[in-house]
């Protein structure tokens, strides 16, 4: 059951800002999505193994051999702010 409080909670988890109007506006579409997916509940899945992946593949891995990394300049090229070879972000207070 989606309420404006659920929307507010989801918005906080996703770090997006919604005003009161938005909170109310998102209730019906989210409710509709849930109702659509809830159709699955009509199936009896008690004898079905949970699916971990949609591809019929297992054990895809690589050997432990290093390859060249990006240069520092290339790594930082899309960052809006950098300093001392690092990405610069607003202060994080722990």
């Amino acid at each position, binding site marked *: 059951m989606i309420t404006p409080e659920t929307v507010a909670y989801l918005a906080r*988890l996703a*770090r997006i800002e919604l005003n009161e109007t938005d909170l109310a506006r998102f209730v019906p579409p989210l409710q509709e999505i849930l109702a659509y997916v809830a159709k699955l509940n009509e199936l009896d899945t008690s004898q079905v193994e949970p699916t*971990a*992946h*949609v*591809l019929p*593949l*297992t*054990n*895809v*891995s*690589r*050997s*432990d*051999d*290093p*390859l060249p*990394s*990006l*240069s*520092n300049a290339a*790594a*930082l090229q899309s960052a809006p*702010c950098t*300093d*001392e*070879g*690092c*990405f*610069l*972000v*607003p*202060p*994080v*207070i*722990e």
Partner: protein
Amino acid sequence: MPDFAPVIGLEVHVQLNTATKMFCACPNRFGDPPNTNVCPVCLGLPGALPVPNAAAIEAAVKAALYLNCSVSSFSKFDRKNYFYPDLPKAYQISQYDLPIGTRGSLEIEVSGTTRRIGITRIHLEEDAGKLVHAPGASLVDLNRAGTPLLEIVSAPEIFSPEEAYAYLSSLRLLMLYLGISNCNMEEGSLRCDANISLRPAGSSTLGTKVEIKNLNSFKGVQKALAFEIKRQSSLLATGTPIVQETRLYDAATDKTLSMRSKEEAHDYRYFPDPDLVPMTFSPEYLARLRDNLPETPQHRAQRFVSAFGLSQYDATVLTSDPALASYFEDTIAAGASPKLAANWIANNLLSALHQTSTSIGACKIRPPQLAALINLVETGTLSSTSAKTVVFPAVFEKGIDPNAVVAEMGLAQVSDTTQIDQWVVDAIRANPDVLDSLRKGKVKAVAKLVGSVMQMSRGKANAALVSQRIAAILKDMHGIEISG
């Protein structure tokens, strides 16, 4: 004040020492300039595809088996979603409901009592980057992002700060024996968080749990837990409820402090990572890994006692570091007597390493050289004093052949009886008063003869042999019997 008993659980993160990261081929290396071991995968750039490191998976399975865990035949990676600047993808690849290992255990020893501590789970995940806080901003270095990390969660079965210390030491030693991590707390390759709750002694209901972070050493863990026991006991004694929270340990003041951050309930929304397909482990694969696990430290110590006749204490000291234990075995293989080798390593070598802050791996005196030195003493070529005070320090410093030091410095003992007998006869002739004294029962006068021989030989006569020959010659040529 009523008695409260602590219940402690430890969560340990061990960085694996693979050549590359968990999901990309960037070097997994500490100490490089920031953001130089990064690529689209570990930077979390759109469209990059992670591919797991086979060596990291194998190390995790080995660790699970070594810690007596059940390893299920099927395991997978999940996404743990949260926002933090050191986490470029805004999710950490971790494992949720199907970890590599579950229900293991670890043996600890505290003041002579051995106990098994349960291990709830052990799973594989990727490390986050590193944040450096500067005034008005934070700097992000993603070299560490994507480092393979083993999370090992103990059962809440640790009942004292001392047991917590023993658990960590034991776990670290096992990881070192497996060789899968450097376990260096200063470099952060081994990190620990602790959970602690108190309950009235004898009760079986758990109290409110407090999490402690920022634990930078094993001693720090022990001290932080001791502080929490005192803090929580005095609160409970006055009927004040414990707040469920995360606290930071401050080593400088030896206190824990409540974290300032707003306590937001975590909602990580785990789900299987669609970029990564599941792992399966066949019984044959697990059997092969199990059969090739290294001997445990306890077994090795036991073997040192039974095969080499070492004391339990020496065996424990020598097996406290796998490199040291191998050094000992290599010294024996190079021909040294086990007991003498144990003595030399546990005493002279360890204190020299300690004084110079050298690791056993970087030690210049190698097992064959130590064995040669031990044999020089055992055969009487070199006095034990010269070996300890002159030859060992020289070999330790320069890594040269002890035989060369002995030859160069003219330290070889004279153990030739003909030569020693000659000196003894000369000494008696030069000190006629000694015979008179001895006949009067003044046994101590022998010392004068020993001193005289040592002077004639310039200190090189084999002392034990000199005493023996003096006694023999006094008896045979002068009819004087001295005992002792």
